[in-house]
């Protein structure tokens, strides 16, 4: 079974009388364990696709299967549950909860998944150690550097062991060194078996991925594997 299967997907935004065709007949298959970079200029439709894959938005037409489940008619709360279990988000602007220490931030998805307090804490500490922040657990987000914040966000994304990590311009607010650091973490996570989708417009970032999908005006104009990768996955 494919992890993600997108068939003839269209997304049309209506603002007043103006219609914006953000995605046009998109078809994508993504397997477990892939590391994909989705590229394109702003307005190319890559963020719209990201929102749909992340179950934050619904397609106008076409089909989207996530681990065999068609994401279409679910209620807002059902989508919340799917996001909680299946998707780990990493955002450009980190999106940590302010005035809440980073341990609590990492625990948050597990609270909604109703994991017991003890297990939550153990798991959160384990994940923070994995991203090298074990000595910062009681710090508040605004006491951390950009790179550190993004590492917290990655730890949070991993909290419920979701099949996909969805990163939307994860290095957009970071300097070169931190960007490299974050991408190395993604690389490492992918080597450990996590599926990762990164939306970016930077080639420096995209080079870490095994597969690159390029969008332009709502359509895929390029979808290629790095050399040797296909064999490795097969």
């Amino acid at each position, binding site marked *: 079974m494919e992890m993600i299967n997108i068939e003839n997907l269209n997304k049309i935004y209506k603002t007043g009388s103006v219609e914006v065709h953000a995605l046009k007949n998109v078809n994508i298959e993504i397997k477990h364990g892939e590391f994909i970079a989705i590229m394109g200029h702003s307005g190319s439709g890559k963020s719209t696709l990201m929102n749909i894959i*992340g179950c934050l*938005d619904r397609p106008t037409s076409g089909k989207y299967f996530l681990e065999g489940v068609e994401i279409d008619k679910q209620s807002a709360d059902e989508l*919340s549950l799917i996001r909680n279990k299946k998707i780990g*988000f990493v955002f450009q602007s980190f*999106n940590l*909860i302010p005035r809440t220490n980073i341990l609590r931030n990492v625990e948050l998805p597990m609270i909604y998944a109703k994991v017991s307090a003890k297990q939550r804490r153990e798991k959160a500490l384990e994940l923070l150690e994995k991203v090298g922040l074990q000595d910062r657990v009681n710090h508040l987000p605004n006491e951390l550097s950009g790179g550190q914040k993004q590492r917290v966000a990655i730890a949070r994304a991993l909290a419920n062991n979701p099949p996909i990590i969805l990163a939307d311009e994860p290095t957009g607010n970071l300097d070169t060194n931190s960007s490299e650091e974050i991408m190395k973490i993604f690389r490492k996570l992918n080597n450990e078996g996590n599926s990762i989708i990164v939306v970016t417009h930077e080639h420096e970032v995209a080079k870490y991925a095994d597969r690159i999908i390029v969008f332009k005006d709502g359509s895929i104009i390029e979808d290629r594997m790095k050399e040797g990768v296909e064999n490795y996955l097969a």
Partner: protein
Amino acid sequence: MRSLLTMLGIIIGISSVISIVSIGDSMKGVMDDLYKDFGENRAVLYVGNIEEFRSTDFFYNDDLKILKERFNDKLLYMCPSESVRSDVTVNRNTIKLNMECIDSGYDNVQQVKMLYGRMINNNDIDKKSKVVVLEQNAAMKLFGKENVVGKTIRTKIDNNMEDLLIVGIYKNEQSPFLTLMQGQDMYEDSFIPYTMPFSANYGYYGLDFFINDNYPVSLVGDEIVNYIAKLKNRTSENYIYYTVEEEQTQVNSIVTGLSVAVAAIAAISLLVGGIGIMNIMLVSVTERTREIGIKKALGARTKDVLFQFLIESATLSAIGGIVGTITGIGLVMIGGSFISIPIVVNPGSIVLAVAFAMVIGIFFGYYPAKKAAKSDPIDALRYE
């Protein structure tokens, strides 16, 4: 700081409700004390509602004897309700003296604190002794000292000047507040035997009863009225029977009604406080749109967000309620200590006030919380 200002409305509302309710309760307490002083099982019977009086309508010593026998087990004490007022002068000190006519045994039904000497006894009643028991203030004003047992005072009784032997001194025990309520009447207090001032065939206008606690005061009263009416060949409407109990119930219900009414007006300020909470919660929801978006993206369901904000506003108002309760009680305590009355704070009203504050918080927090819960995660995440 902002939360404090938000809570202020609730604090003021709750503290005024709490203080008004406990002022009401304290007033009731004071009134109860007043009635206890007068005697809760006390009743008076007097002649009234008669167009043309006959001499037989009044109460005579023979009637007293018959009533005493007839209602022996139900009456603790019975005495004509009469008093004599006169000026008394000793060594150029003149006071106005109120001489309450009592039977022996008065000190069994009413608390009388004797300082010196003795109370009016059976012998005084039988022999119509010319004796008096003075209140300590009267003694002080006349003689300049308290212990004046054995001395005599000259006073006018039934148009005759009489010398009364002082056989006892007692002390009026009343809180200053009660004295204030009853008013200062210039007269000093004293007791004399009821048989002494009046001739044997004197017709008394009213009778004073203390009813045995085992019997309901009003029922015994009805019995007595009916009996008297039959005895006097009148109807029961011709006699007025008046119990402290009835009066007390009446006054209590007035005080309760009044304090409930005023508390209800004060509760309007709670409404204002609730609107304040709603206002601040709306601001808070807008400010935290992004936070809500993040939480929703991470898997928070509608009800998770709803509860988060409801709990927040309920906490805000509950804290306001608690602070308001403390403030209210504090205010009443300070007020009460100035006029030296005992303060009654009903624990039930505290629980009710805090619970009510929480309900207000939940009620006025619901709309903002619903608004937060319903927000679309994409819009919320995009919000800067």
